[in-house]
């Protein structure tokens, strides 16, 4: 077994040329071929569940987007992509990922893959219900409720502001911008106070 120090050295030595040649063209996101020697871990079980090598398909945006729409069946409530790339102990999400890949290999598009999952696991596998039938209520009720309450509020506000304006016009005041019995100084002070209050 090679020591940790040797591996760190190998890693750093391996990193140098990589850094010197760093900078693949902007936008490229590709793992490069291995350059170093991979040693064995002292306690592999402590490093979590053994992992398969990631492939280009694991980073396929089309596949990932499909998996974002499907829930993992382990009970975590996360989508397949998030679950398989999060706690790394779930045994369900990697299997579901493979199912998605297999369906894609059969030539199915996103909708067909999702339909296949719904057929197999039920509607619960969808991260959000399809907007059809009763589910439409799920999407539109909050908006309708807000619009409805907002409309009632608007009608009441218009009605009350008109009422206030009418009452104010009919109020027996001492004149525009005055209060009965108030001196000019007091009026100015009141205006100043109100302005301060308004601001």
């Amino acid at each position, binding site marked *: 077994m090679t020591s940790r120090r040797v591996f760190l050295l190998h890693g750093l030595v*391996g990193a140098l040329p*990589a850094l010197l040649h760093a900078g693949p063209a902007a936008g490229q996101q590709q793992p490069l071929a291995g*350059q170093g020697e991979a040693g*064995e*871990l002292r306690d592999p079980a402590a*490093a979590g569940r053994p992992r398969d090598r990631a492939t280009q398909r694991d980073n396929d945006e089309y596949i990932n987007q499909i998996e974002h729409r499907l829930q993992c069946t382990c009970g975590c409530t996360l989508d397949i992509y998030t679950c398989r790339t999060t706690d790394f102990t779930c045994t369900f999400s990697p299997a579901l990922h493979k199912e998605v890949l297999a369906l894609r290999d059969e030539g199915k598009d996103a909708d067909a893959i999702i339909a296949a999952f719904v057929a197999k696991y039920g509607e619960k596998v969808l*991260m959000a219900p399809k907007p059809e039938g009763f589910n439409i209520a799920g999407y539109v009720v909050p908006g309708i409720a807000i619009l409805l309450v907002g409309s009632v509020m608007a009608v009441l506000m218009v009605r009350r502001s008109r009422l206030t304006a009418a009452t104010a016009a009919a109020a027996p005041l001492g004149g525009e911008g005055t*209060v009965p019995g108030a001196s000019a100084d007091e009026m100015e002070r009141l205006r100043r106070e109100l302005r301060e*209050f308004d601001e």
Partner: protein
Amino acid sequence: MTLLGQFSLWTALLVGLWATLLGFSGRWHARPELGVAVTRAVYALFGVLVVASLSLWHGLITHDFNIEYVASYTSRNLPGYYIVSAFWAGQKGSLLFWAVMLSGFAALAQWLTPAKYRSLMPYVGAVTSSVVVFFVIVMLFAANPFARLPFTPPDGNGLNPQLQNIGMVIHPPMLYLGYISITIPFAFAVAALLARRVDAGWIQAIRKWTIMSWLFLAIGITLGMWWAYVELGWGGYWAWDPVENASLLPWLTMSAFLHSVMIQEKRGMLKRWNMTLIIGSFLLSIFGTFITRSGIIASVHSFTQSNVGYFFLAFLLAAGILSYTLLYTRWDRLEADVQLESMVSREAAFLYNNLLLVGIAFSVLWGTLFPILSEAVRGTKISVGPPFFNKVNVPLGLMLLALTGIGPLIAWRKASIRNLQRQFVVPLGFGLVTLAALMAVGVRDPYPLIGFALAGFVTGTLGQEFWRGTSARHVMYQESYPVALGRLVSRNRRRYGGYIVHLGALFYFVAFAGYAFRTEMEATLRPGDTVSLKSPFGHTYTFTHVGVSQFEQLNRVVSQASVQVAKDGAPVGVMSSEKRQHFSEPTPGLRQKSFEPSTEVGIRTTLQEDLYIVFAGSVEGTEEAVYRFTINPLVVWVWIGGLVLVVGGLIAMWPGGAAGGTLRRGQAGYEVRLAGTTSGVGT
């Protein structure tokens, strides 16, 4: 000590019942000494629950594994601070935490409330004691933290590794404190209704409590986001999980209350609405607890399922029916003093703001409960996750952001065209410039585009407010600009504290919009291998795998994978991510693995973006490692926003503000009608 704990709980039950019955009976109206007795009973309730809490802590610290709770959540090798935090890590302990903190708040309310509100205090004591009694009953009959095992295991199960994080030491108590402290404003509201004293007095009495409660919830929610981000390893901070939603609900309604209560203070309007909001906020806090503890909705956060959910459901229904019935009986007394004068006014803007905040709360509640509803109606189980919530709530959130910028620009009572022109030019300019700049650099995604543009608009509004106030002081008092700014804020704490809170909220929105641009990839690397990932800001990071090292640390074996990171070829340092295998050691030399290995992410934070790396595991037990690399733009602004929001809240609630003065001015101002000042004034 468990005997003492049990005895304390039973004593708490009796003392709490006494305070509840005496307070609600109203006999203290004729015999004032009975009112004092209620206050003393509230203090005593706190005292006995402190004794119960100390008994549980004693069991935790002394590793008394015969106590089922201690054995379930601790182990001998658990670090000390997690043993302390284990007090609230489990269902039973958190119930005791809730009860003792609530009784503490209730005692503080009795102690600190000014004498002029004394006539409300026996009722307040009765309400708070009845809630405490409920929690004590749940503990005594369904989830007793002092329950003993029939045997004593040599070691405990230990604390879930994901809870062994500083965020989890602080986040739950903060959230609990938020939930718990809502009870105090609720108690004052009920007391005001019972005492038929529904003037602005009760609102004055609870002002600091409402801000404090809102702040605790905000801190708790933000810390929960931070914990999820640094601990769970999925690269995000909000998943619209039912338990997350449950914490957001009372925060939203409290936010609505904090706005609408200003209308009541200044104009004597919205009295019924404010009562409805404060009662609703309390019920939502209980609802959140019900969701978390009942297991009725699938959640990654839920406590172990138990029958305490039924207790909470019964309490929720009883509290809801009694409170709203009481409100109904006092409905006529809550008539507004004045009516709205214009639909284009600050008051109207507050109403729109309330509509949106409560609307968002409703949509979150609706989405959270929709799976249950769907199953009841159609018999089909469905899931409602982030795609649903984002679709429904993002447009509402953007409208709310717009109102954050619009509200402060409109005059109270009635805005004139001149007022609107004068106020909107600069903020709209900020918004349009932001929009143009983003479109120029190629941003086309509509929601983030609108979000950033609105953020520019709100920045303009806030900047204008601070600039006008500061420059006015500079001119009037010849103060330097920093001094003028400091005095502006310190002398108008509530207003400018509120603006600082808005600034914090603005940062949240900016961070949320930035999240849309995250990029990520998985890669398998052997030591020396390199992979690159492009940032949405245009530069490229390269990650070179250094190796995986294993070592022991505290109560775990750590497998640490490290990468050398370079930005556009320039080295920026080494980042590491870990797998941690925790173990317990019931007897020296005998180790047992406890829990599945957990993941510790590596994060490098800048104001621009976070580099987020996760060691997913090794291939065939070698140093060949599988990583997930993520670039998360603008994430740090969530945490900065949280900090700014807290600072703003503290400024707004700091003693010595002008709330009383504002109220007096408001009342004085509106007792007379001054036609000449109804338009075109104010900012």
